[in-house]
């Protein structure tokens, strides 16, 4: 019986202690008519050996490719120490640290995480993480609605340059509460939010919040200072959606414009989570100290124990569902503890200089690739400054190019036609620090062939 330690003698003695003769007797309160007839669809047991062999075959079934796709998930080096430590049993198999005295490892780590995230974003407080970047944005929108009591309508402005999956997720989570996402167009030349689009919402109370991605989905850098100032001026809650890796070099949202933003969210994946076909990653959220009681999710605080010795506890639980039930800030209970554990170790090992080198190399590699691609006929689709992703306009459909290059073992990029038919000849490409000069050569060679084909 896999994972069940009971011997026959144990079972006999335990049943006797309970006063029944058979384990089945313990289910006698369940109406007979309801009893399961069997479990269709569950095959016979495999041993661990068989399971691992099966999983190895599955993991090896598809050809490994040289990956140049970003579009929301980014391939970065993760130090070997990171997951070796994160998967130590004491982190891996611990529960939420409700019993603070028995959970100082996890609690201190989260406190350190919160410190790192506030440092990276330039904000004052951070929660202990949310599910992922997309759902964190949804939570930020709900939080903005709670914060902005002045707004007459529940309109949240989102630029077309926002990751469309994030937009969809946010809509799906918030729309039942009567919140409307208003799409702001993107300037087709620069690939940035068109500032003219904002003027319709300049009246105070016309919009609850403004979401600004940096870099945006096309890899382009938004003019965040101006946008931030606009929001502050018009009583609009400013939400930044950022890639935290880029913050090693890019201005942190806490410093955008005159007074910084109100809420920062993003996906922590680039900071230590493997691609893993989309998850688990984690969403982070930082805000101003004055907003902390409207922030959803767990928060760790430093305190002292009965002896006056410092330590860490979950705090501000009165916001949460297990205390406030239907009046909670969110229904969320879980954070992405294990990924945050890995990510905190990742950030500690990389440090400020390491992360800046990763960001710098990603920036430089993508720029090098874009320049080389232009030489073979794939020019930038947008004129705006870009960071480590670039949209390339191709002389043919992106889908075909991706397919052709896949035959060379290269994931060429993300076909923007998948989200916008008008961009079906545009491919979003990302070359992080994991890519060597040889890799880029290989890419360009393959691209050249694909464009001819």
């Amino acid at each position, binding site marked *: 019986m896999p994972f069940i330690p009971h011997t026959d003698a144990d079972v006999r003695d335990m049943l006797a202690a309970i006063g029944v003769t058979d384990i089945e007797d313990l289910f006698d309160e369940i109406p007979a008519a309801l009893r*399961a007839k069997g479990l269709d669809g569950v095959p016979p047991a495999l041993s661990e050996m068989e399971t691992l062999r099966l999983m190895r075959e599955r993991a090896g079934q598809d050809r490994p490719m040289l990956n140049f796709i970003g579009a929301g998930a980014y391939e970065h080096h993760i130090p070997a120490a990171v997951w070796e430590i994160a998967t130590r*049993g004491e982190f891996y198999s611990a529960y939420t640290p409700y019993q603070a005295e028995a959970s100082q490892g996890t609690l201190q780590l989260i406190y350190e995480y919160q410190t790192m995230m506030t440092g990276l974003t330039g904000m004052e407080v951070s929660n202990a993480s949310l599910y992922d970047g997309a759902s964190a944005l949804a939570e930020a929108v709900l939080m903005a609605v709670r914060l902005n009591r002045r707004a007459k309508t529940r309109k949240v402005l989102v630029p077309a340059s926002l990751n469309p999956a994030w937009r969809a997720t946010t809509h799906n989570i918030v729309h039942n509460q009567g919140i409307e996402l208003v799409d702001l167009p993107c300037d087709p030349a620069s690939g940035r939010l068109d500032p003219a689009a904002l003027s319709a919402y300049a009246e105070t109370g016309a919009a609850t919040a403004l979401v600004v991605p940096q870099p945006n989905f096309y890899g382009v850098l938004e003019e965040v200072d101006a946008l931030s100032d606009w929001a502050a001026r018009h009583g609009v809650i400013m939400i930044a959606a950022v890639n935290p890796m880029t913050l090693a070099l890019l201005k942190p949202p806490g410093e955008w414009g005159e007074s910084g933003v109100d809420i920062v969210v993003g996906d922590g994946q680039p900071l230590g989570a493997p691609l893993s076909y989309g998850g688990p990653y984690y969403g982070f959220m930082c805000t101003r100290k004055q907003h902390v009681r409207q922030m959803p999710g767990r928060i760790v605080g430093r305190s002292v124990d009965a002896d006056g010795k410092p330590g860490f506890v979950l705090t*501000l639980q009165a916001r949460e569902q297990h205390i406030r039930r239907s009046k909670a800030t969110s229904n969320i209970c879980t954070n992405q503890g294990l990924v945050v554990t890995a990510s905190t170790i990742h950030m500690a090992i*990389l440090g400020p200089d390491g992360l800046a080198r990763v960001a710098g190399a990603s920036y430089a590699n993508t720029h090098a690739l874009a320049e080389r691609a232009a030489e073979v006929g794939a020019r930038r689709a947008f004129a705006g400054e870009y960071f480590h992703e670039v949209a390339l306009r191709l002389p043919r459909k992106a889908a075909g190019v991706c397919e052709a290059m896949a035959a060379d073992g290269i994931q060429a990029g993300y076909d923007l036609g998948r989200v916008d038919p008008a961009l079906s000849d545009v491919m979003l490409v990302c070359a992080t620090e994991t890519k060597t000069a040889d890799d880029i050569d290989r890419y360009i060679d393959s691209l050249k062939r694909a464009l001819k084909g």
Partner: protein
Amino acid sequence: MLIFEHARPGRRAPAQAPLQTADTAALPERFRRRSATGLPEVSELQAVRHYTRLSQKNFSIDTHFYPLGSCTMKYNPRGSNAAAMLDGFLSLHPHTPDAHAQGMLACLYELQEMLKGVTGMRGVSLTPMAGAQGEFAGVAMIRAYHEARGDHARTEILVPDAAHGTNPATATMCGYGVREIPTDSEGDVDMEALRAAVDPQTAGIMLTNPSTLGVFERRIHEIAAIVHEAGGLLYYDGANLNAILGKVRPGDMGFDVIHMNLHKTFSTPHGGGGPGAGAVGVGERLLPFMPVPVVARESGQYRLLTEADMPQSIGRLSAFMGNVGVLLRAYAYMRMLGHEGMQRVAEYATLNANYLAVRLRDAGFSLAYPQRRATHEFVVTLKREAKETGVTAMDYAKRLLDYGYHAPTTYFPLLVPECLLIEPTETEAREDLDGFVESMATIRRESMSEADMVKGAPYRLPNRRFDEVRAARELDLRWQPSS
């Protein structure tokens, strides 16, 4: 010591970043960061040592018996971890075209099928990233269903008062009002109150069965009939699925939608607070509304269904597929358990819970529902002990830590005073249950002779008891160089 206190300006872990600094001179000034990031500057050894030592301060399943009610803290097989950490899975980009992700999709598809089998539901979507998101998906589907039928009058979700806090919170997030249904003296839903509450505004009811009181709701069929007749749907909170796995299937009980906490019943790691996975299963009526992506199998090939394939879907709830690494661990676990193993989970979880309940009762403790069978968990009330000695459930919980046991869940469910909700799970050995009973009895004795000592517990951990009220009042949420 905090990691920041090991830092020194200029200290680095150079093997872990590009060896050369890249040229970023072209990045315009206005986009550039000027301030420090505040990340610690430590060596690789310092980081490794710091976090290794930190980890040792945690209780965990791998080090301690962890009878935390409602959390199903059972053994997380290391084989599941190894399977999910295979390079071929970890390096797969989520935008990989379906044709190049067939190995991964095969695992996910088969996981969907197995979950359908064990729940008796017609469809499964794996994408919700935690139980609470599964709940959200479930109630959002109920809402979408009513709206698709043009039935806009339903504004209310019924929730028993014993329910997890996520249930009412979820209803709120989906734009519903919440009406609480009381519990009768035997721990079942109060049927009179239910009948009185059901009306044309009822969108549905959220139920856990077995309930959070550790008992099986016997009149579930009747409840289903009442709610269905009124046009409402039944939502099954799968937090306690471990208790009935292989014994009863939510689909057979009449539920229309269910979420499953894969990190409970299917033993993916809790990870110090996540990631979880909250797959949802649906009956016939809700099939079109499932959140995307869902994995389909068509002529031997797997592909992801999206909004285009399922126009009535409540849509996506995350940027990609959800917590895939967690799903892979659940898949590996289910394959290792197999058909027979899956049936034994509930049997031995229930055996352990009933044995532990009886032993505690025999040691003089009061069960909240002594006339009922325990399911996979049960409630002890220390009301009498608290009155006699002043030693509360929280004091017991803290003192148990000194004896090397993680505390049970305290003060939940809310309607039982001074309670401990205890869930031993099927993977613990009998002698560990006996040891727990012994420690409980010891604390009881200590309470009589030296109550103050017990109230001061714990003593044998890195910290004594924290003042949590003060923590919330004097907020210190991040380290600052001056602090």
